């Protein structure tokens, strides 16, 4: 299977991997935390709606909040216990803003909800697989957290030629996918087969970077005799980005503004495949995930299986705390992860890593002027001109930046990583994207309120008119009456 032809990735960078910190530490379960903070929104789309009340006792795996709308995912109880609050808790988000959260106080019993499961999952119908994936609240575990079932349904309708399982894990430090592939390869392969069945894929490829030889070996052994092909890809960032892994494995590009389904491709993370297998074979919803705790400031880097809702502090404690002064705490990988300051933030479905980085690891420096060295142009995997886009945004010309392809930027951070002037290029791009979205919202609101104002003016005019008409009618009626009375009087008089 190694003979499969690979295609070239444009641009890309080679950040120092630093995966050795955690790679050899097997997955361990975290001790059960006393309190879990389960945000209602852990996915792209509408937040889930709570279906439990404060004081209610719930079992492990029980539905806490149901999906709401077309793009959403339900949330389940990570352990048994009592709901102690429905309120706001600090979100795992750089803004540090609160997010509606269910607080669950565990009772330590870890009592599972009776789950049906399925002993012969590979005989299930495609629709049934997708429905169960949706019910289990599975989202893309690679970090994008797009509801997985939605992708399955979308792809089944449009037909899938190539199903790609993303085992790239190109972010430095992170080893959670590496470990899950090493330790749970058979389950992953079964999950892959379930996904392939759900979308009727012709070809199934598992792309793994060549810096994970043990994971490759484990996956190859597990895939023996199945239609699942393990493909070894060169280590390069951002190999694990959806657009890039498709390009490298198939040579195809997703049309601008489109989805992988447009070119007959579906991409899922290997950890998502594991979650699918757990959901369908054992009826277990997505309530935990593998998280890498690493970074130069962490004492004992490790990979843990943490329940959704576990405060990050518990993970740091499990890794024996800090060994060195921490300059920055990051959720996710260093290239695209988000800084956080409050260690009470919970682990959510999309949390792949908790990093405590030292100042030297971050390598931050004051930005200096751009010398147009075009290192960023060479690093951009999308073929953009980061230096030109940033110059336009700096001069508040967001439209100019859009014309240069701002909306095609995948925010991988390669340009910022290599910039010798330390210009926060991707920060400029995300600022511009956010500002443009805000402008778009403001425009929509303006249109809506304008319509309301027009309606009101029309209504007031109508009421006035009707009032006038009614007055005219009354007057006419009165006059007619008077005339009639007069006429009657006259006729009487005449008579």
């Amino acid at each position, binding site marked *: 299977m190694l003979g499969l032809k690979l295609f070239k990735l444009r641009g890309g960078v080679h950040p120092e991997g630093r995966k050795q910190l955690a790679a050899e530490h097997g997955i361990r379960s975290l001790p059960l935390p006393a309190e879990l903070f389960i945000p209602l*929104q852990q996915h792209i789309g509408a937040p889930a709606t709570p279906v439990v009340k404060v004081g209610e006792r719930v079992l492990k795996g029980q539905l806490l909040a149901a999906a709401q709308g077309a793009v959403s995912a339900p949330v389940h109880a990570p352990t048994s216990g009592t709901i102690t609050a429905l309120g706001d808790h600090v*979100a795992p*988000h*750089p*803004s540090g*803003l609160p*997010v509606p959260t269910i607080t669950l106080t565990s009772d330590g019993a870890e009592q599972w909800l009776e789950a049906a499961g399925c002993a012969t999952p590979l005989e299930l119908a495609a629709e049934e697989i997708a429905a169960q994936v949706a019910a289990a609240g599975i989202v893309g575990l690679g970090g994008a957290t797009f509801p997985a079932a939605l992708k399955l349904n979308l792809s089944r309708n449009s037909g899938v030629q190539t199903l790609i399982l993303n085992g790239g894990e190109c972010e430095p430090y992170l080893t959670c996918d590496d470990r899950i592939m090493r330790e749970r390869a058979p389950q992953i392969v079964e999950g892959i087969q379930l996904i392939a069945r759900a979308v009727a894929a012709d070809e199934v490829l598992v792309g793994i970077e060549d810096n994970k030889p043990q994971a490759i070996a484990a996956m190859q052994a597990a895939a023996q005799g199945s239609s699942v092909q393990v493909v070894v890809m060169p280590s390069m960032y951002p190999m694990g980005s959806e657009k890039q892994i498709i390009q490298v494995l198939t040579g195809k590009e997703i049309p601008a503004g489109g989805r992988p389904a447009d070119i007959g491709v579906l991409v899922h993370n290997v950890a998502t495949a594991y979650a699918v297998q757990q959901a369908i074979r054992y009826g277990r919803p997505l309530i935990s995930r593998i998280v890498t705790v690493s970074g130069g400031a962490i004492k004992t880097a490790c990979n843990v299986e943490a329940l959704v809702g576990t405060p990050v502090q518990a993970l740091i404690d499990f890794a024996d705390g800090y060994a060195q002064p921490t300059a920055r705490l990051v959720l996710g990988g260093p290239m695209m992860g988000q800084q956080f300051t409050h260690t009470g933030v919970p682990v959510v479905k999309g949390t792949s890593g908790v990093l405590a980085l030292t100042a030297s690891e971050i390598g931050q420096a*004051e*930005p*200096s*002027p751009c010398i147009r060295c075009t290192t960023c142009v060479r690093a951009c995997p999308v073929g953009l001109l980061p230096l030109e886009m940033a110059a336009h*945004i*700096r001069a*508040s010309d967001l439209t100019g930046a859009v014309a240069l392809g701002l909306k095609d930027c995948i925010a991988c951070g390669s340009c910022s990583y290599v910039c010798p002037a330390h210009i*926060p290029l991707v*920060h*400029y791009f*995300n*600022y511009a*994207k*956010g*500002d443009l*979205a*805000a*402008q*778009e*919202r*403001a*425009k929509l*609101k*303006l249109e*809506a*309120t*304008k319509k*309301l*104002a*027009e*309606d*009101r*003016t029309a209504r007031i005019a109508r009421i006035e008119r009707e009032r006038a008409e009614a007055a005219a009618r009354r007057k006419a009626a009165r006059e007619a009456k008077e005339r009639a009375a007069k006429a009657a009087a006259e006729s009487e008089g005449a008579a």
Partner: protein
Amino acid sequence: MLIAIISLTVLGSTLGLLLGYAARRLAVEGNPLVAEIQAILPGSQCGQCGFPGCAGAAQALADGTAPVTLCPPGGRALVQALAAKLGVEADLSGVQDSVPMVAEVKEEICIGCTRCFKICPTDAILGAAQQIHSVFREACTACGKCEEVCPTESVKLQPIPVTLQSWHWKKPQEAV
């Protein structure tokens, strides 16, 4: 000499007639720009710009006597739309600073007088007589009319709270 005079006269009068005919044939009622600008403006007739309603503001904008930043409810998006329509540079520096606002009813002191409800140009206030009113945020343009008429100072404009959905990265600080 004579030929020159005649030819110029003929030329001039022909062109003059042509112009006169064109002026009648292609006449435009009013300034189309005013109508187009009015179509862009919020249309809530709030009067914050100092002109009597959006039509007056549109006229002033078309005449070039008012800046494109005149409309607070329109926000930055409107400034940019106006600047594009009029072909002028928009100075967004002043606009950026103003925080987007929304009216909010303090329920403890609302007496349900319906004054705000009646004056709201976008029907953004819900309520009835003797009942506490509330503001439908999505429809509020922060024109401030309700604030003016409220007898108990219960309706106040407040900055729109930032949520996870509306939050976005600020522009990077420039060191150089």
